[in-house]
């Protein structure tokens, strides 16, 4: 018997005597929040939760998104003791709106299949997002062309993420409902962190050590 058939047979045998019933999952928990996506109170909550986990957040409108992206890049790279190129090298996914980058003086490098080493030579990345969850301070990337493949938001040390305020939902269930499981998904809640040393939280280990979120109204 193959291992597959054997394991399946064992599972069936283990359940055979009592045939446990398949109860319904009681979904009496909150399935949606009290506020619609993009509600001002939700945006405030999202910002509070982001900053609680030491991400940086700023709000802007379409008119000034390029200015805020530029400032997020320069502030994000202005960290003591960090090497950076001059001008800084910023990788972007192919579908990122080009006008978001019109104000930065960084070297903008579109990702056309950069190697890992080429990515490692980038100081930062700018992406969009697919969903944000206010209660947990989470942004989710799904590999859409304005977010790119997973490696580009992982290897560079600074991640600037532009979130449209109408993408912000209140609860985890609302976030899950908006996502397509067929896509590669990365849920990001603050910069990378560890609590492995005496459970003392330290931000910034292997993923981007700095996360700037630019909230774009309307």
């Amino acid at each position, binding site marked *: 018997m193959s*291992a597959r058939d054997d394991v399946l047979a064992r*599972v069936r045998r*283990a*359940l055979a005597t009592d045939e446990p019933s398949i109860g319904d999952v009681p979904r*009496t928990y909150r399935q949606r929040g009290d506020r619609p996506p993009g509600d001002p109170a939700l945006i405030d909550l999202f910002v509070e939760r982001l900053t609680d*986990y030491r991400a940086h957040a700023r709000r802007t409108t379409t008119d000034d998104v390029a200015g805020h992206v530029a400032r997020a890049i320069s502030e994000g790279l202005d960290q003591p003791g960090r090497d950076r190129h001059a001008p800084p090298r910023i990788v972007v996914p192919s579908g990122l709106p080009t006008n978001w980058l019109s104000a930065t003086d960084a070297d903008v490098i579109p990702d056309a299949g950069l190697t890992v080493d080429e990515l490692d030579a980038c100081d930062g990345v700018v992406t969009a997002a697919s969903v944000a969850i206010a209660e947990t301070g989470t942004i989710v990337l799904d590999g859409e062309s304005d977010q790119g493949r997973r490696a580009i938001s992982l290897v560079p040390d600074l991640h600037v993420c532009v979130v449209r305020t109408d993408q912000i939902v209140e609860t985890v269930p609302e976030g899950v409902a908006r996502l397509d499981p067929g896509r590669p998904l990365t849920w990001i809640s603050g910069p990378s962190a*560890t609590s492995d040393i005496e*459970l003392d939280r330290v931000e910034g280990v292997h993923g981007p050590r700095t996360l700037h979120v630019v909230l774009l109204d309307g």
Partner: protein
Amino acid sequence: MVMIEGGPFRHDADPNTATAPRGVGHLRGDVAFPTAARAALTDSQLRRNIGKATGTIRAKRADVVAEVADWEQLREAGRACKAATMARLPELLVQLEERVVAAGGTVHWARDAVEANAIVVDLVRATGSDEVVKVKSMATQEIGLNEALAEAGIAALETDLAELIVQLGDDTPSHILVPAIHRNRAEIREIFLREMPGVDPELTDEPRRLAMAARTHLRRRFLSARVGVSGANFAVAETGTLSVVESEGNGRMCLTLPDTLITVMGIEKIVPTWRDLEVFLQLLPRSSTGERMNPYTSMWTGVHPGDGPQDVHLVLLDNGRTATLADEVGRQALACIRCSACLNVCPVYERTGGHAYGSVYPGPIGAILSPQLTGIADNASLPFASSLCGACYDVCPVKINIPEVLVHLRARHVEERRASRTVPNAEELSMAAVGWVMAEPRRYAAAQRAARAGRMLAGGRGRIRSLPPPLSAWTASRDLPAPPTETFRDWWARTHADDDRSDHTSRASSSDSGRHTS
């Protein structure tokens, strides 16, 4: 394990293959719990480290759980979802396999640790690589994958900071979530200075500096890795989606940068539908790290063209899980999402640390899971390694009734011993004496009150040098519970009156010590 005709406990028809095999992996200790616990209790540094860490995380967890108004509804949904999963496991496994294959992945099945290790070794060999990067995974620790890879000449690099500390310190994990919880910052600095080639000799013990040293140490290895090995926190049968929940970004590195990704997952990690993740992604981070959400959660479905590994494998592991499933009471242990909240509230774990349990699964969950995976005879003392205070049940995000399973396994152990017509050896006598204290509700209630008081007295200062009563019978004379009105031997004679004593064989060999030494 033995067959018991008409007995209350059912056993798999082929116990030798259904439980996790001996001689491979890390489910059995070299010494039984009482002995290991006694040794751990003399290490005051260890107790201080653990007391401080568990105290911190208990407070964090309590804060973020209190924020969630529907926490009890989420727990109930989590419990029900896992119960339904177990009831439908055959069809869900087949569905998961179909979806992963349809998305370009390859699915392998392993009856046990030996088979799983062989599958992974073969897959790595086929890539030509002699190194793999690993993201922390309980399943691969359980099966001893790193040792199997080393035997095949393949280096396995642990990339989780705590696992790295454990690996560099030539140590073993002592906690599910924070495997190096028994090490303080000064000890970690020592290990890094000694074991990390090229480390800055000026390294201080500041956690930030230590974390940066780990980043530098691993960076090149991540960027050049060709094979990644992971576990999975959840696998969605409906979609074929696998998920890893982590903090540092080492998981993302392992899951994204290599060409080949091999995921080893226990068959119980399935959830039926995509939507079920909305429950577990709320329960897990708050229960484990005490965060509203962990920094990174990755989800992938087979191969994503142009994004991440293009050669994706899933190894589905039994290794005693079907034996656990066969026990109607004990199977709830398979619902565990490995949050480790039960460890952090356990007065026994707080005093002994994780190593005393002898298995990769320590604490209350280990006390009910390890003996079921191996067969009770091989981990016979673990179901007794609890004061039954119930704190673990209260915090468990999927409502596993750990005290209920403990009591059940104690009874099963006695049944099995009776059926095999052997009298207990010395170690089992001491364990059974503890069980005897607990068998009497009144006596047990008194012990439980004492346990709670003992916990309060300890107050995180780690001064208490014994286990909470009644387990203190194992460890310290001054904490002995009131002497029972009947001796254990009298009780044994009375309750085993139907046994023919002349037929009893008292085996004193090491194989009868309740633990397998490997």
